């Protein structure tokens, strides 16, 4: 089967899955009484209670659920994602506002998580049953058991509270005015990139400074999973015949460990990176809430607390699409790297 055929089939399947997800989430959100769901249409705070009932009728919130679902689907198809009370504007505007902050953290954390996980896993496997191996394994299982929110709060308490460095937020107060001033060119919305475009290195450094703790939080929590997998797959690889051959031919330890074994051992790590990504998206909700970074995760947490139905629906579907998309990419990478894997 050709690659294109495979990709198209997977994309169609992704649409089907998201369709299923939308039915599931919409169906469950229908359990919320119409009087609360009507909040999504209240754009003016001074609406008299009598008007609320009229709005419920106007927007058909008491209609049978399937009718409401298809009405909602029709609106989505026309590009109307609804009004989000937590974003104080249309959902799409909220998304454009919040997404870059999340993407920035993902872009910094992912390479670090993979690097740290692969490196520790390799060290652990090469020194199997030595003290350093025991130490890394204990650290990893402890890291795996820590609640995201607790580690975040501890980091914040120690660095920000005790030492007075690495404050929460995305930017220092003195610089916050700059990015809302007319002179600021917003290209990507990602501060560390926009600041270079605007040639403001002070903002670049300040944004990095604020990124440190959230990134550290994610790296400590999520590299544990990669490390565990890397260790066992590295041990598998080191026991293979071709390693013995390489040894017999006089290859150095460094060549064997880093060239022959590690490359093969990394294959399972690639397959698990989809799962890792899901973990990161979930961790994002907590991390952004604790470090007050107004991104998608922070938005989702607020929307959940304030029953912002449009934002919840959108975020669940968006995160689902990202997750399914990432898994597709992971599968494609895997098939490219390992010719033994056939796409089916």
């Amino acid at each position, binding site marked *: 089967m050709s690659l294109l055929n495979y990709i198209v089939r997977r994309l169609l399947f992704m649409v*089907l*899955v*998201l369709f*299923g*997800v939308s039915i*599931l*989430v919409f169906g*469950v*959100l*229908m*359990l*919320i009484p119409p009087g609360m769901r009507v909040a999504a249409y209240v754009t003016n705070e001074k609406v008299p209670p009598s008007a609320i009932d009229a709005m419920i009728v106007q927007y058909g919130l008491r209609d049978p659920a399937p009718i409401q679902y298809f009405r909602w689907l029709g609106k989505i198809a026309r590009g109307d994602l609804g009004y989000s009370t937590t974003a104080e504007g249309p959902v799409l505007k909220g998304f454009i506002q919040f997404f870059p902050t999340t993407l920035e953290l993902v872009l910094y954390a992912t390479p670090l998580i993979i690097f740290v996980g692969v490196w520790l896993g390799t060290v652990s496997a090469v020194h199997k049953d030595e003290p350093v191996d025991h130490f890394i394994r*204990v650290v990893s*299982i*402890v890291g*795996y*058991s*820590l*609640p*995201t*929110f*607790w580690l975040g*709060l*501890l980091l*914040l*308490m120690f660095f*920000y*509270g*005790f030492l*007075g460095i690495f404050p929460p937020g995305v930017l220092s107060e003195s610089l916050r005015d700059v990015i809302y001033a007319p002179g600021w060119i917003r290209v990507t919305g990602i501060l560390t990139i926009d600041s270079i475009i605007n040639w403001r290195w002070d903002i670049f450094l300040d944004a990095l400074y604020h990124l440190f703790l959230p990134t550290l939080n994610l790296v400590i929590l999520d590299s544990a999973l990669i490390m565990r997998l890397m260790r066992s797959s590295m041990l598998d690889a080191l026991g293979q015949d071709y390693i013995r051959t390489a040894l017999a031919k006089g290859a150095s330890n460094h060549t064997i460990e880093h060239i022959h074994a590690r490359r093969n051992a990394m294959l399972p790590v690639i397959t698990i990176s989809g799962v890792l990504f*899901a*973990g990161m*998206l*979930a961790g994002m*909700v*907590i991390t952004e*809430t*604790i470090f007050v970074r107004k991104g998608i995760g922070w938005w*989702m*947490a607020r929307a*959940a*607390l304030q*029953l912002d139905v449009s934002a*919840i*629906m959108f*975020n*669940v579907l968006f*995160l*689902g699409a990202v*997750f*399914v998309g990432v898994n597709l990419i992971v599968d494609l990478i895997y098939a490219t790297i390992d010719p033994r894997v056939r796409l089916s």
Partner: protein
Amino acid sequence: MSDIVEQTKEQPAAHPGWREFTFSMKRLFKNPLTIIGLSIIMFFVFLAVFAPLLAPPPRPFDPYLMPHRGWDMTPSPPSAENLLGTLPSQYDILYGIIWGTRNAFRIGLTVVAANLFVGLILGAIAGYFGGIVDEIIMRIGDVFYAIPTLVLAMALVVAIGRGLQSIVIVLIILGWPTYTRVIRSEILVIRNMDFILAAKASGVSHFRIIMRHIMPNSIFSLIIVGSMNVGVTILIAAALSFLGLGSDTGYADWGAMVSTCRNFIVGPPENRLAYWYLVFIPGFTIALFVLGWNLLGDAIRDVFDPRVRRR
């Protein structure tokens, strides 16, 4: 002739199952991490069982409501009266930890047991019958797989209303696909083995084949997955509580206790770590509980999983 019979009577050969079991147990207790994990869990079992003695509830009809002295919003540090200090509104932290243990066990074990049960049934049906039934069950599972659990759980908890009960219900709804996948893949292997064909040929009913021949062969992999998932379940439930989707303030729930400390991360200027106990103790309890389950899960996998044992 009679000699031989006498001998076998005197020294009956150990049953292979028993030999296997003792071998497994020996391996299990050789690993120091297992001992640590087991000790942690036993400690929490002790707390949960003896909660009424360790922290006598002032209102026995509703022991999960933490007692508090006054409404002062400033937490008090550990003292003779409150050994581990208090939360804002003077809720005793020690009391919350002890009764919260019962909650943690209740959430973790209920969710995992329900997931095991549903996963077992659906997985057995999907794997054994195959075809369209298999397709439908597994595609519904894919829908659940497509969204990170915490995010989907947030949406569902919001919809059916906040609270610990809702969290448990939602985690039960969301958890089954993992187990279904595991049991299904096991059954796909077993289904075509000779002894199943023999059973079919001798006219044994589907139900009996599944219950008597397939289940005993595949249930261990489910137990491994289940034991490794208790910790994860507790973490997700605690995260939902922390985000404010769980119980109200004053209820003995670890996640909710951590969330009350969010406004007290930085102490007053003269002692910036003044509220350390508030941030540290409830979160540490969750971490310790989850660590115990993870260590135990790892050990159970190492010992019972045929793919990694005997190495």
